[in-house]
């Protein structure tokens, strides 16, 4: 396993320029020939979340400004996780033409997709953070924790993404199942609501949801202006490690079969 991992790392390093090109392709391509271009990456989630903030602040009878900060802080990690998992699901299938014709280390496909989403997420973080400041969010030294939270979030999401990128090659229906499952998971994740408003059976389900600690990682520094509790950090770290190991094991075990099943 260790020797396989070092070989994998060496291979990724050797093909870093392909990786860079694939990431750029993903970032640039979407908004080519639109007037706002890349700005859509920032504007789109901003508008989306603003609508949600207004609607749900009214429903929950909360102050719009406070609720907006609360919601943004939860939506940043959720959107990042969601996009990495959903888009990784199609990473091999969408590149069938390439995979069948030329050798490229398999991990580059889900990795480039995930890195692309990750970069998008960081940029929209700055845009949202500007809004958080504008509506009166508190600035504290806990903000220095956000990069760490991002790294943990990436490891977690990328691990899950790896598993699904391989699994969809074998079971094509998963592409559609993932999207619906993620919708469901969204409502089981305390993004729109506070974790402690739930009780009964649903709260047990939420307690099992592995995404929850990652939402806390972002919400503590951004919304409460304090460090996440040690408990949450430990919990999130463990989940990230398990996830990335699981993802790599699945990929390394199955990567040679992928080309035969596309």
């Amino acid at each position, binding site marked *: 396993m260790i020797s396989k991992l070092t070989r994998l790392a060496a291979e990724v390093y050797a*093909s870093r*320029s*392909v990786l*860079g*090109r*694939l990431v750029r*392709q993903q970032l640039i*391509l979407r908004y*080519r020939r639109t007037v706002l271009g890349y700005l859509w990456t920032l504007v789109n989630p901003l508008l989306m979340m603003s609508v949600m903030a207004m609607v749900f602040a009214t429903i929950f009878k909360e102050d719009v400004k406070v609720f907006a900060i609360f919601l943004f802080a939860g939506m940043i990690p959720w959107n990042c996780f969601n996009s990495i998992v959903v888009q990784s699901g199609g990473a091999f299938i969408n590149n069938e*033409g*390439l*995979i*069948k*014709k*030329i*050798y*490229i280390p398999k991990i580059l496909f889900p990795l480039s997709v995930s890195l692309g989403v990750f970069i998008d997420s960081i940029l929209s973080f700055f845009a949202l953070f500007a809004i958080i400041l504008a509506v009166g969010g508190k600035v504290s030294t806990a903000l220095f924790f956000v990069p760490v939270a991002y790294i943990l979030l990436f490891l977690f999401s990328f691990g899950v993404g790896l598993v699904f990128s391989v699994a969809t090659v*074998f*079971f*094509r*229906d*998963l592409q559609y*199942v993932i999207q619906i499952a993620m919708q469901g998971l969204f409502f089981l994740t305390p993004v729109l609501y506070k974790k402690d408003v739930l009780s009964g059976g649903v709260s047990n389900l939420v307690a099992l949801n592995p995404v929850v600690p990652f939402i806390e990682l972002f919400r503590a520094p951004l919304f409460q202006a304090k460090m996440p509790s040690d408990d949450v950090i430990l919990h999130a770290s463990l989940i990230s490690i398990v996830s990335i190991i699981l993802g790599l094991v699945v990929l390394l075990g199955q990567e*040679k079969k992928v*080309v*035969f*099943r596309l």
Partner: protein
Amino acid sequence: MSKIIVDKLSIKFRIYHDRSPSLKDYVANLFRGNRQSAYSDFWAVKDVSLEFNSGDRVGIVGHNGAGKSTLLKALCRVYESSDGRVTVDGRLAPLLEIGAGFHPEFTGRENIYLNGAILGYTDLQLRAIEPEVIAFAELEEFIDTPVKYYSTGMYMRLAFSLATAVHPDILVLDEIFAGGDAAFMARATTRMFEMIDRANIMIMVSHDHHLVKSLCNRVVWMDHGRVVLDGAPDVVIDQYLGLNTHAG
């Protein structure tokens, strides 16, 4: 010096009789425990051992479906072996299908860098060969236009120029390709031959026996995934064609 060793290589494809199994079928089969499978195995390449050394100009001949292209793809690592192994010593350029990594939305210039990186060129190399690639493809005017607006000929010219811009140690060709008008074909053929000349090892699949005889100094005849004969071009091709006329 370059060298390729193919040791008892076998590549298995799984043919599904009705369709790709869904998650539902998979789970259902787990519980049913029935081992009667909905697929059969097909050995595209079976127990092939070959050794290619420096100076070899190898032509691979055989019927459609004999496993020629599969063997080439195994050399280029597109297909991993089901059994046996392939060892490649030297920088290998796979020209199985040119323009495979082109993205239609990207301009010609962007595609040079994207496809070039996939072909294994470094950024430095790409910057150095970029003007020559564009000049050879005669695309100076259109290089910053997205490739999707190119004519087939323009597309082929760009892909060919890029694929043949750097001289590799080991050249792997699946049918000699070149598109475009007569003038470009002539230049492309010269460039191709020059590239074959400079390569340390050249392995090609072709149905053009005259071409194989003129370019190769060794021919491998494959049938049903196995090597039938391996030897001098005249001997092997005559036998292969002889069998063909008897059969036909």
